[in-house]
């Protein structure tokens, strides 16, 4: 979705639209003017210390389960020298960010960026606050600040042994001129006491008692509930609906068109709204998308595998000469299907609209994009719109979009004064997704007489996310994100092999379904394409897949080190129990290097057991190893669910999978034992929410090949004769 800037803060809305797509804005000041809010002992934008010693860390990124909230608090507390038991947190109001000249920087949480793109300025926030607190104590004692130290929220004057606490000096500290953030020296991670440790998350208790409030739990006085159905064919419109048929049903208050593309029923309870919506006759203009099916999409993508294209991602040497001079050639075509995010908390937003105010409560990965969407949908000036961010029951990229917020405001606008909670049914979530894009890839490799890989040709054909949802970020029509993990260089997604002749390009083919960022994004299919194909080439060369890879990685020491770390932990090369086979894969993305070794067995009738997966990660630094281990395990579950059971198919323009019975997700019985190997090598900051997902599927697929001798190149596996317990 693109925001049409109609409001008084034009640059804000444009900036937010870009941020919503997941890229850093290239700012910013870590803190600016201090003590902005009267009565709050705010040392700077990131840190509040209360007179009772409570520390409040401001969280500008979203917590959706990934643990960023706790990690950011650890980083601030580390520099602040805070007593961890006194640390609490609060979300940043996105309007504050705009009012304070984007003091909080990018509030978006996508691309595994929450910590790796804000660690520096939040730590400087903590360090500056510490310095001001020490100065305040020193001034009170009339001693040089250089004679004072701080630890555990206690300031000590070393020569005299006098002590005071942060809370006792905070009111004086806020009056001190904040230091220049550039003048502050941050702590060497080697001496971290709070950051870098497997400290317990701050948000666990409420999640085991039912007390945690998610956006779907929002309750407001006088609130009504809305259920919605958009045209089942993306791009279609509402022609008419017979409201009279359902208006007499119990609890029904209103039947509305929403944005021309959807209908909603508003009722006293959501169950009444949904019951009436299911009974509502609607006539749709389905538009040209209704002619699209999985077969037509496949034909389009296949055509793209052979077509001319100007969109090149990686080119070196002379691939045509390499292929022409090959002693041996290997060729394969892979395909990766649409996937839905299927966050456990269905999409929802609550809105209250009056002529001079619009309030929104929702869970999101991008609070500023929600604000922009609410401003646009309400038609009200920026200053009259309020957004309250609520903890998210999963995000995975879906909550970077704001379509559900727009709808909630559009409904509320038709019923001024009444708070409306819009909750999507699971069926709506499954059929109105912003789907992981569909692509195919044809790969050709050339080997010389000594079985060295001399050339790699990759043609990707398929959907571009940026073309679908952020066309302003295309580069002369080319989508650079299509080549994630396949780039020649760079710190984001660099290919790990030195191949003398290479050509990777993209024939963009965009079906009517809206694409979106889905945990791991284009790395998911690119890692399958590259890492399964490299495995194929290794077998064609008669070499061990690990040894074959290592030969090509001398110029990529970090890729190689993490691959070796995974192999070592997995006892690669040592015998496995009878019937158990290994697969290996590596990839780099979102600044981190990852590798996995999977151990599987496959019965003669296709029962797959994934016994164990070792996942190794070099994310440069580790802020909370317990959180990272959980992100590794979770990435395996999410990535393997997609490859085992996922895949959205299209018939008559509609997504056919409507719930977890047709779009299954991994459960306990199929869960492998996951072993994490954290090998942070320092000097850079990589993400951890996504990277491991890249190697989940290719490691398992390569192990399945080792077990069966059968190379599977299209998914899900349930359609290829492979099932799980």
């Amino acid at each position: 979705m693109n925001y049409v800037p109609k409001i008084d803060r034009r640059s804000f809305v444009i900036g937010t639209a870009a941020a919503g797509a997941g890229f850093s804005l290239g700012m910013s000041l870590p803190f600016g003017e201090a003590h902005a809010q009267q009565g709050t002992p705010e040392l700077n934008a990131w840190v509040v210390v209360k007179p009772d010693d409570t520390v409040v860390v401001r969280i500008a990124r979203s917590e959706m389960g990934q643990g960023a909230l706790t990690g950011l608090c650890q980083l601030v507390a580390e520099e602040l020298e805070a007593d961890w038991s006194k640390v609490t947190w609060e979300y940043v109001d996105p309007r504050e960010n705009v009012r304070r000249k984007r003091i909080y920087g990018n509030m978006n949480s996508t691309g595994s960026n929450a910590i790796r793109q804000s660690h520096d300025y939040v730590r400087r926030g903590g360090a500056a606050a510490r310095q001001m607190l020490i100065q305040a104590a020193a001034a009170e004692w009339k001693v040089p600040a250089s004679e004072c130290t701080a630890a555990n929220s206690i300031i000590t004057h070393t020569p005299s042994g006098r002590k005071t606490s942060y809370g006792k000096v905070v009111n004086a500290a806020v009056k001190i001129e904040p230091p220049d953030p550039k003048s502050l020296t941050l702590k060497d991670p080697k001496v971290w006491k709070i950051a870098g440790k497997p400290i317990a998350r701050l948000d666990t208790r409420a999640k085991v008692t039912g007390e945690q409030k998610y956006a779907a739990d929002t309750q407001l006085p006088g609130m009504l509930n809305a259920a919605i159905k958009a045209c089942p064919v993306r791009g279609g419109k509402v022609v008419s609906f017979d409201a009279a048929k359902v208006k007499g049903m119990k609890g029904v208050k209103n039947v509305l068109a929403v944005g021309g593309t959807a209908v909603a029923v508003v009722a006293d309870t959501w169950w009444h709204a949904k019951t009436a919506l299911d009974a509502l006759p609607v006539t749709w203009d389905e538009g040209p998308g209704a002619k699209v099916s999985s077969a037509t999409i496949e034909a389009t993508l296949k055509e793209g595998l052979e077509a001319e294209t100007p969109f090149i991602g990686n080119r070196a040497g002379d691939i045509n000469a390499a292929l022409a001079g090959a002693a041996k050639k290997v060729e394969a075509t892979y395909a990766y299907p649409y996937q839905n995010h299927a966050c456990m908390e269905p999409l929802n937003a609550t809105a209250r609209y009056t002529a001079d105010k619009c309030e929104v409560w929702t869970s999101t990965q991008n609070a500023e994009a929600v604000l922009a969407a609410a401003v646009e949908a309400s038609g009200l000036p920026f200053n009259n719109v309020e957004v309250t961010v609520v903890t998210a029951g999963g995000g995975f990229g879906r909550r970077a979009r704001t379509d559900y917020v727009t709808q909630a405001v559009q409904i509320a606008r038709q019923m001024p004064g009444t708070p409306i909670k819009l909750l999507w049914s699971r069926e709506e979530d499954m059929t109105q997704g912003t789907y992981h894009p569909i692509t195919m890839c044809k790969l050709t490799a050339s080997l010389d007489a000594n079985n060295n890989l001399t050339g790699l040709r990759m043609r990707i054909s398929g959907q571009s996310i940026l073309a679908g949802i952020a066309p302003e970020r295309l580069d002369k029509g080319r989508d650079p994100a299509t080549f994630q993990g396949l780039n020649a260089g760079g710190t984001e997604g660099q290919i790990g092999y030195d191949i003398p002749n290479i050509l990777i390009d993209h024939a963009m083919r965009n079906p009517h379904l809206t694409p979106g960022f889905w945990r791991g994004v284009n790395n998911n299919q690119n890692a399958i394409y590259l890492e399964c194909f490299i495995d194929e080439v290794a077998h064609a060369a008669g070499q061990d897949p690990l040894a074959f890879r290592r030969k090509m990685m001398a110029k990529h020491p970090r890729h190689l080190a993490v691959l070796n770390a995974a192999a070592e932990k997995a006892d690669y090369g040592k015998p496995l129990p009878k019937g158990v086979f290994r697969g290996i894969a590596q990839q780099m993305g979102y600044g981190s290097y990852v590798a996995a070794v999977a151990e599987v067995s496959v019965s003669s009738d296709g029962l797959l057991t994934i016994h164990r997966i070792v996942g190794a990660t070099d994310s440069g630094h580790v802020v909370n190893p317990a959180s990272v281990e959980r992100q590794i395990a979770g990435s395996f579950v999410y990535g393997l669910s997609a490859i085992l059971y996922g895949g959205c198919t299209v018939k008559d323009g509609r997504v056919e999978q409507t719930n977890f019975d047709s779009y299954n997700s991994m459960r306990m019985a199929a869960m492998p034992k996951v072993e994490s190997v954290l090998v942070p090598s320092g000097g850079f900051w990589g993400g951890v929410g996504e990277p491991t997902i890249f190697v989940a599927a290719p490691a398992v697929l390569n192990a399945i090949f080792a077990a069966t001798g059968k190379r599977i190149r299209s998914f899900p596996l349930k359609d290829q004769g492979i099932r799980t317990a």
Partner: protein
Amino acid sequence: MISLTINGKAHNVDVEPDTPLLWAIRENVGLTGTKYGCGVAQCGSCTVHVDGVAMRSCVTPVSSVAGKKITTIEGLAENGVLTKVQQAWIANEVPQCGYCQSGMIMAVAALLKDKPKPTDADINDAITNICRCGTFQQVRAAIHAAANA
């Protein structure tokens, strides 16, 4: 009006007999710890106990549970003292987003009542809830921890 006994308290709720128990709990009684995830008994986010048995409340008509003893996640702890399962969940830091965990914990609490020392196979059979964050490894560890507590 249907009378429901939830967490030891009687509630008269004005709903149609075929209303799923989930929505009566969430919308009429106002206890929001029990979650909607799928509506078709697939994901288990809505799991509650009915007379001590784990039930997926999204497909359980209220008429079928009138007069029975219903327990939701809010009713597990007594006087603020968390159950062994909840304590094991905290000690093992199971939740990520946490949305599915109410149902997961209710399913596990029922399992441990039936089988105080479940094997991994017992766990695989009994715990079929979906968690998109992928907390299963911690769930398994926490079940064993609770069983041995």
